[in-house]
């Protein structure tokens, strides 16, 4: 057991010394201020057009969307989406809560919402994709596998280290986001109520389960879901890294899958069996925010199950291949 943790330590040392994790932090530290600044400009602009009363702004958004509903040029799916949006906004208006209240916490929530399907998985991939393939390209796998340790233990130590880094990346995404956006918008906003529990029934929103959650609790739930998505993406990328020899190829494979996912979510509503693909199920936080699912019949439970199945299969494949394959190069 001690030896196992020593091997996990090995993997952590390698990830840190390869400086991949610093790159992730650096990307966050560069991008978050850019988005924060953009957000700041946006709220300044809003203030100019609506004054200091946020109700005007929300009312305006509702009216705009209502107008577009009557237009023939707007596709049917978009109309569904807008109807839901209108109802949500109306709900906020009725309960006197500003959905766009600027603040470090709100910004963090929105930033993570937007980055959970592509940006955070991408950062996780920078670490997961070369965990095994780099040992093969570097030839160090020969040293690693000629030590008196069973191969599955070697792989398990890598998976363990990977899961630790997934947690660390999600945590640091939150932390960096909050700290930097806090400088722009202030560090307040933990207790602002956020409404969750919008249940979608076709084009109607069932409001009977809606409840106000303080933002900090919302963030916790969101973090759990983002972490889960991160773990699934990490395990998939890990499998690809076991199967593919070159790190570059393994990153490209995963990138293609993720990007195809975000394209599919925008156009696959007619092709319902696409809902079993992992890529279209990555937007778990959408369920929390009450946004409509990309494909009919998808629920939070469904998506969790699909993702868990994909993750389980990739773990099994990784272990089977890694423990049996001849190391030829």
């Amino acid at each position, binding site marked *: 057991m001690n*030896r196992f943790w020593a091997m996990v330590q*090995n993997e952590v040392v390698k990830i840190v*010394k390869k400086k991949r994790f610093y790159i992730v932090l650096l990307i966050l530290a560069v991008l978050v201020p850019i988005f924060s600044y953009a957000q700041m400009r946006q709220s300044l602009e809003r203030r100019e057009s609506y004054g200091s009363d946020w109700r005007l702004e929300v009312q305006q958004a509702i009216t705009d969307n209502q107008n577009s509903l009557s237009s023939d040029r707007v596709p049917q799916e978009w109309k569904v989406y807008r109807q839901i949006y209108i109802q949500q906004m109306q709900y906020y208006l009725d309960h006197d809560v500003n959905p766009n209240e600027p603040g470090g916490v709100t910004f963090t929530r929105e930033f993570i919402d937007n980055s959970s399907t592509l940006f955070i998985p991408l950062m996780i991939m920078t670490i997961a994709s070369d965990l095994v393939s780099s040992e093969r390209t*570097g030839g*160090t796998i*020969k040293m690693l596998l000629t*030590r*008196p340790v*069973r191969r599955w233990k070697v792989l398990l130590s890598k998976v363990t280290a990977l899961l630790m880094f997934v947690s660390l990346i999600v945590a640091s995404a939150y932390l960096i986001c909050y700290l930097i956006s806090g400088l722009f918008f202030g560090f307040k906003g933990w207790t602002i109520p956020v409404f969750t529990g919008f249940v979608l029934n076709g084009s109607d929103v069932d409001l009977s389960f809606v409840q106000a959650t303080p933002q900090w609790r919302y963030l916790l739930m969101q973090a759990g879901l983002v972490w889960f998505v991160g773990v699934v993406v990490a395990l998939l990328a890990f499998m690809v890294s076991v199967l593919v020899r070159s790190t570059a190829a393994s990153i490209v494979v995963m990138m293609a899958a993720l990007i195809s996912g975000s394209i599919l979510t925008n156009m696959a509503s007619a092709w319902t069996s696409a809902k079993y693909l992992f890529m279209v199920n990555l937007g778990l936080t959408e369920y929390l925010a009450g946004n409509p699912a990309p494909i009919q019949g998808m629920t939070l439970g469904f998506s969790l199950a699909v993702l868990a199945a994909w993750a389980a299969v990739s773990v099994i494949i990784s272990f089977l291949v890694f423990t049996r394959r001849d*190391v030829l190069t």
Partner: protein
Amino acid sequence: MKQQTSGSVLHVRDLNKRIGRKTIIHSISFDVREGEIFGFLGPNGAGKTTTIRMLVGLIKPTAGTVEICGFDVQKQPEQALKYVGSIVENPEMYPYLTGWENLMHFARMQEEIGEDRIREVTELVHLGGRIHEKVRTYSLGMRQRLGIAQALLARPKLLILDEPTNGLDPKGIKEMRAFIRELAAGGLAVFVSSHLLSEIQLLCDRVAIIGGGRELAVGSVDELMGAGRGMVIWDVEPRDKALDLLRGYGDIVVVDSAGAAALEDAAAAMINARSVVTETPEERVPEVLDRMVREGIAVRGVHRVAPTLERLFLQMTEGEGIE
């Protein structure tokens, strides 16, 4: 069925490897004993590296067994590999770690290797001064030494080195040989692969010769490539007369220029326009010399050189040749 010789550290029986439909290793068997340096000789592409990979469990044999200190590498890898240190092909370490961190990395994978031991092997391979620098900055020779340090870390009984002098300068090669001999003198069994006959002759006690994935011979170095099969370079004048004289002997074979060109560099450097290269039994040399002098042939030099691997193969397969 155990026919293990006493003191046998590595015991290989009927090793076969098939990839797809192609059999690349045919039934290789040999033993390596305690304290001996065992050579594994064959041209590039003969299957040396594939065999080595099977010895250390990187490749699963299609048939046959590899036992290290009595443990089957396939069935009990944790016990068997405990007794082996190896460098397969190039000594590849993590370039972004320091030498020390690399050794720590491999030490953590096994029990009972403390920092004392790491310091000890570092001293042993003379890396002390630069052990805390990144491996990226090491020369090939230093990487080779770090690789050996890593291999020795767990006090193995068997050391497997794949072409250990590859890419080293002449001084480095000499040091490496001396170092390997020192290790063997300490009771370690050393398995060395090479494609250079001279290398094996200078270093090894016993040798297995392989070609085309087949084992051609196993035995002591003296026995297999001893004096009787050596080559002689005659630096003589007039050349034609000497040629006629040499051809007169039944047991002397004159090597044509193509054969001479295949000599190892050190030997090839001795050849000039007057040279005649022959395969001559050692005991014939004084007699032939005597005759040459009597017949008025000026002998400027007689060098006995190691036969080339190609010649050896020819002798072994009796003209069958290797591809």
